């Protein structure tokens, strides 16, 4: 009772609170609460943003450092590799230190190396390095010699010796020793180089000669300070980037003060708290060299620090860790400003909204005093009112209004209260619902006391008709299925509120959903129900649509290949599924009931499970949405990739996280991704392997991107990007490329052109390929053709020389297939064998070989093919196309291909018919001379022998006869020798002709006198006709010519016949000729001998010499004499009828 009192007192106190305060205060409280909540959420999201930012920053910085480090280190190995190739190709003589030093200097000028060097195994050394920021060339010219350090000029040539160092001993250096030990390209261990380079590392590669023995070591030193420099440039503010060797050695540090003392190698176990914390943390995972890429957050020096660890390993033996640490404070600085802005904004909003709220409240409660005043007047309570209306007063006022209105609704109202009735009725009539009051009589039938006209709309009959038979109409229009329920509920409900929904079929055939709600009022044994009937057709319709839509949604979810599950996830990492869409079953084959957390865990490969669980759990705990991707073994055993998108919230009541998991089957995507990765890696590898310079260029000539290549070190500087081609290349080349770009863009076809370029004084020949890329960008691929062009030209020249040598060779040459077919023949061979090129190529070697020589040739070839001999030579006869035989000297060798398979024979054919002929002629000459000398000698020897024996002492006549024989034969001998000598002298041109003016008649007379004796002996008559002119000739020689011709004619003429000698003058320019003719009636000369009889020792028949006492010198002598006079000699003849010899002489010698 006491408590009731105190409650009452509180109530009374509340009632006295002014309405304005009562309305304003909760509003302000709500406003503050809402703003506070918003502020808190913003703060939370910022925390999350910082967290994400921190992770992303350390990841990105780590990746960037990795790329830079990789580029920096790769360059040294690539340059080494290139130098090795240059040495092996013979382009650089590594033994020539002058050249090598110069070469190194140029490379040194191109790349940012600490030094480039080469040491031979004997201790001699050449290298380029910096001294006081200036490149110098160091050389140990000979083993055990001093080291000279030369300063250099801008062209890289040595200028003067700057310094000499005794006992340099380069072979003890780590870069030399390590490479020799490894026998392959390596990175050395980190070693102190000198004061300015406390930490250096070298890319070293051993150089072997063609026999595989070590020549020396090529090496490029990198200063690790350089790495410090780009660590410092990694834009992490107060963060820290360090590179550690997995052994613990500090390689580089972004803190500039951390350069270690000389000779000391600082290990990670130092007092540096950052490094210590990180390494302590990392060593928990075991050995540092097994560490994978890793991110975490650590509290270091009471600072939350984001850590990212990235291992760097390469094929040359480096095993480093890149560690990036960024303190949260660094990130918070930026975000802190945002926080202040947010708070300020919140405060402004609070003030603004509070002000608006207060003003609105005031405006709202302004009428309250008037209302209260009006009510008081209505209640006949007159007094004074102030503006601050207490709550209780306002409540009372409202109550009075309500009571007044209610009373007016019913019929037993007092006359005083009658006037509000029309108002309520009007109100009821204007409502869209049926409002009614009905009394249930004991007979169970309803008697309506009031119903508003809306009934006419709903039931589609007039209110009067409805009221005449309400029960019947209600039941009649009610859907038959709903009637039983309705009656049942009506029967049951007596005291409690009544609600029922049913379907009503109106006279027009419409189906309407109706709902009634009514409250009972006990009245003298009857129950009066006051209620409304609502037309809820639209609601029902919407409900049905909603259900249909839900069903559709379910179908979509089930069929879309997406699984949706609602899980309860407990802190012990188990979960239960509240709901699992059918898509889940389609995806993995398990029904939602089967899919327990144990089963789920057992279907994920064990090696993935821990990671997936950790990721998922971490995200769920932090109520962060996460997408986890994992492999899952389906019920049928096949493996698929699933991606689950998890969103979680903590449910305090259930003590678990409610997780919505949306799963998608990403097997196909993973497969494509893998393929794409492989393809991308392949593309990148191919692109990197290309020696070409690739440029992405805008059509206006601006470089947009450049793919670096070692083939064009000068042209691949990153500075080129953004530069215009006209600033880079000579104007004509730039114009040419721009034209090609325009053509490529307009035709959409690749344009290829070649151009010369002079780089560093070296003339290069390059090929440009311009391909359209977009509407205004092209891809330019530049390839160096210099070497190809040189090689091609050299090859062409070489081929040309070979072809020329082959074709123009003065000996016959042929390439013959192993089966004996001619593959290629030269002109000389065609001439030797008398066949054309085409005819020979259709024949085999055997086809034109003399049958007697075929076997020997074939045997030799067989021996070549079976490697028994390397080449052979033989004399071989070919049968010429004309049928005659040509004697040749054959020289054959075999050419094989790389696989030692025979390709063809190279055959050289020398025509030695002439040689044979000469041999034959020589033999014949010896035979003739021998015979011709012996005959007179025999006579002389015989005569003298007889005389000497004295057997003719008594016979003086016989003595005289024998002496005469001896005498005439010795004359004959002298003549013979004279002829021989004459010919020899005429042929050698040793005897100048003594040209004098002679009368033709004199010359003819002398010749006839010389031959008179033999003509008489042979009984031959000589007949002459000649002009009476003078000619300028060597008289003796012409007499000899005429004598020889006459002698021959006499010798071969039958006894009793006539020899004709005639001469006539022939007018011709520039000098008239005299034309001699000697005609006989002898046996004639065969046609094939007409030419050759003028050659020395040539006679028509071998027997002629013996028969006619001649050795075949006469005509040869004639020919020489005539030709020396500038005339010609020839013969016409008919076998059996006689011969006519002609010769011409100019009548005057012009130049004598």
């Amino acid at each position, binding site marked *: 009772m006491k408590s009731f009192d105190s409650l009452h007192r509180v109530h009374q106190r509340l009632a006295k609170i002014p309405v304005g305060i009562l309305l304003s205060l909760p509003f302000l409280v709500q406003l503050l609460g809402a703003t506070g909540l918003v502020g808190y959420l913003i703060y939370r999201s910022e925390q999350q943003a910082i967290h994400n930012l921190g992770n992303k920053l350390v990841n990105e910085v780590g990746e960037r450092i990795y790329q830079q480090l990789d580029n920096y280190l790769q360059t040294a190995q690539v340059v080494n590799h290139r130098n090795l190739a240059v040495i092996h190709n013979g382009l650089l003589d590594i033994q020539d230190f002058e050249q090598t030093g110069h070469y190194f200097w140029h490379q040194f000028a191109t790349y940012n190396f600490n030094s480039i060097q080469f040491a031979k195994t004997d201790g001699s050394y050449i290298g380029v390095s910096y001294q006081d920021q200036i490149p110098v060339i160091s050389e140990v010219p000979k083993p055990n010699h001093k080291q000279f350090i030369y300063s250099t000029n801008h062209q890289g040539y040595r200028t003067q010796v700057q310094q000499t160092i005794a006992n340099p001993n380069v072979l003890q250096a780590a870069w030399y020793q390590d490479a020799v030990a490894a026998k392959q390209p390596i990175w050395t261990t980190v070693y102190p180089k000198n004061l300015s380079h406390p930490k250096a590392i070298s890319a070293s590669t051993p150089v072997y000669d063609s026999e595989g023995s070590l020549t020396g070591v090529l090496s490029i030193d990198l200063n690790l300070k350089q790495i410090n420099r780009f660590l410092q440039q990694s834009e992490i503010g107060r963060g820290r980037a360090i590179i550690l060797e997995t052994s613990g050695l500090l390689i580089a540090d972004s803190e500039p003060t951390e350069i270690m003392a000389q000779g000391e190698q600082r290990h990670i176990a130092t007092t540096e708290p950052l490094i210590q914390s990180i390494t302590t943390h990392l060593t928990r995972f075991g050995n540092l060299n097994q560490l994978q890429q890793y991110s975490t957050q650590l509290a270091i020096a009471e600072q939350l620090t984001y850590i990212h660890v990235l291992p760097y390993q390469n094929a040359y033996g480096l095993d480093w860790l890149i560690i990036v640490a960024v303190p949260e404070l660094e990130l918070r600085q930026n975000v802190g400003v945002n926080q202040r802005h947010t708070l300020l904004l919140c405060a402004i909003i609070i003030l603004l909204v509070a002000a608006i709220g207060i003003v609105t409240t005031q405006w709202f409660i302004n009428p309250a005093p008037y209302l209260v005043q009006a009510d008081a007047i209505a209640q006949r309570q007159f007094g004074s009112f102030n503006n601050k209306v207490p709550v209780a007063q306002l409540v009372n006022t409202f109550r009075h209004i309500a009571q007044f209105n209610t009373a007016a609704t019913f019929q037993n109202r007092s006359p005083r209260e009658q006037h509000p009735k029309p108002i309520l009725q009007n109100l009821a009539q204007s409502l869209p619902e049926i409002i009614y009051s009905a009394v249930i009589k004991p007979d169970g039938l309803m008697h309506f006391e009031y119903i508003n006209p809306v009934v006419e709309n709903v039931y589609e009959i007039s209110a009067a008709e409805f009221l005449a038979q309400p029960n019947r109409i209600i039941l009649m229009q009610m859907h038959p299925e709903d009637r039983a329920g309705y009656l049942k509920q009506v029967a049951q409900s007596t005291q409690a509120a009544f609600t029922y929904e049913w379907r009503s079929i109106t006279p027009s055939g419409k189906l309407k959903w109706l709902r009634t709600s009514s409250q009972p009022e006990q009245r003298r044994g009857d129950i009066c129900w006051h209620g409304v009937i609502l037309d809820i057709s639209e609601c029902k319709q919407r409900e049905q649509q909603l259900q249909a839509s839900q069903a559709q949604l379910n179908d979509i979810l089930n069929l879309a290949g997406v699984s949706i599950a609602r899980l309860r996830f407990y802190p012990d990492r188990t979960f239960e599924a509240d709901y699992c869409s059918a898509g889940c079953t389609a995806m993995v084959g398990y029904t939602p009931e089967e899919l327990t957390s144990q089963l789920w865990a057992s279907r994920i490969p064990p090696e993935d499970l821990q990671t997936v669980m950790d990721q998922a759990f971490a995200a769920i705990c932090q109520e962060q949405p996460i997408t986890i991707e994992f492999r899952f073994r389906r019920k049928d055993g096949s493996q698929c990739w699933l991606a689950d998108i998890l969103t979680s919230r903590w449910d305090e009541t259930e003590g678990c996280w409610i997780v919505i998991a949306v799963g998608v089957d990403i097997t196909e995507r993973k497969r494509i991704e893998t393929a794409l990765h492989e393809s991308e890696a392949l593309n990148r590898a191919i692109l990197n392997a290309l020696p070409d310079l690739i440029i992405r260029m805008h059509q206006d000539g601006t470089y947009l991107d450049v793919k670096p290549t070692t083939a064009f070190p000068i042209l691949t500087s990153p500075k080129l990007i953004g530069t215009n081609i006209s600033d880079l290349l000579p104007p004509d080349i730039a114009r040419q490329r721009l034209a090609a770009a325009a053509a490529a863009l307009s035709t959409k076809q690749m344009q290829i052109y070649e151009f010369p370029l002079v780089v560093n004084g070296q003339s290069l020949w390059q090929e440009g390929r311009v391909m359209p890329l977009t509407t205004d960008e092209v891809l330019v691929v530049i390839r160096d053709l210099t070497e190809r062009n040189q090689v091609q030209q050299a090859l062409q020249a070489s081929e040309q020389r070979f072809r020329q040598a082959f074709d123009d060779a003065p000996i016959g040459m042929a390439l013959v297939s192993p089966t004996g077919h001619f593959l290629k023949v030269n002109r000389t061979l065609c001439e030797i064998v008398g066949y054309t090129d085409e005819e020979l190529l259709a024949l085999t070697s055997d086809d034109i070989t003399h049958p007697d020589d075929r076997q020997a040739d074939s045997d030799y070839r067989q021996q070549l093919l079976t490697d028994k001999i390397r080449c052979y030579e033989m004399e071989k006869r070919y049968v010429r196309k004309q049928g005659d035989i040509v004697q040749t000297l054959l020289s054959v060798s075999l050419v094989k291909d790389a696989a030692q398979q025979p390709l063809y024979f190279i055959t050289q054919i020398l025509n030695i018919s002439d040689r044979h002929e000469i041999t034959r002629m020589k033999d014949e000459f010896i035979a003739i001379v021998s015979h011709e000398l012996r005959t007179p000698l025999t*006579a002389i020897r015989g005569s003298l022998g007889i005389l000497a024996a004295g057997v003719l002492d008594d016979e003086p006549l016989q003595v005289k006869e024998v002496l005469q024989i001896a005498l005439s034969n010795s004359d004959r001998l002298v003549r013979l020798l004279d002829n021989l000598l004459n010919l020899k002298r005429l042929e050698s041109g040793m005897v100048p002709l003594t040209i004098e003016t002679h009368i033709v008649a004199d010359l003819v007379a002398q010749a006839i006198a010389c031959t008179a004796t033999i003509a008489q002996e042979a009984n031959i008559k000589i007949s002459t006709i000649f002009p009476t002119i003078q000619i300028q000739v060597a008289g003796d020689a012409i007499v000899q010519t005429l004598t020889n011709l006459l002698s021959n004619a006499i010798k071969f003429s039958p006894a009793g016949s006539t020899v004709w000698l005639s001469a006539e003058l022939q007018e011709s320019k520039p000098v008239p000729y005299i034309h001699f003719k000697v005609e006989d009636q002898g046996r004639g000369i065969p046609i094939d001998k007409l030419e050759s009889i003028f050659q020395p020792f040539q006679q028509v028949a071998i027997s002629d010499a013996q028969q006619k006492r001649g050795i075949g010198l006469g005509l040869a002598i004639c020919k020489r004499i005539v030709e020396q006079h500038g005339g010609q000699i020839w013969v016409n003849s008919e076998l059996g009828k006689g011969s006519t010899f002609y010769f011409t002489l100019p009548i005057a010698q012009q130049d004598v």
Partner: protein
Amino acid sequence: MTKHILIVDDDKDICRLVQISLEKFAGWTTAIAQSGQEGLLKAKTELLDAILLDVSMPDMDGFQFVTQIQANAATRSVPIVLLTAKTLPGDRQRFAQMAVAGVITKPFNPMTFWTQVAEILGW
């Protein structure tokens, strides 16, 4: 016992010197023929102990002459000795194939010439 020899050579000087040599130093009798035809004729008509034959003559060479001597039964038995200036190895091979008793090369020693002939013919 005296011998009767036919000398066949187109060179009349040689014929004469051979004749003098055989007659004066050996005391044989001789006949001379300055062509092949003449030689064949004399071989048939005279009783000969031997023929001295030059190999190369304008009208016929030694081969033809020997063949014709061999072809005639009356002359077949007369031995022939070649007297020639051909001294090369190829010539000797050809002579070896001829049906002759022997070969004497020019120049010859007129004093001992007859002994060479006698030796060849086994006199």
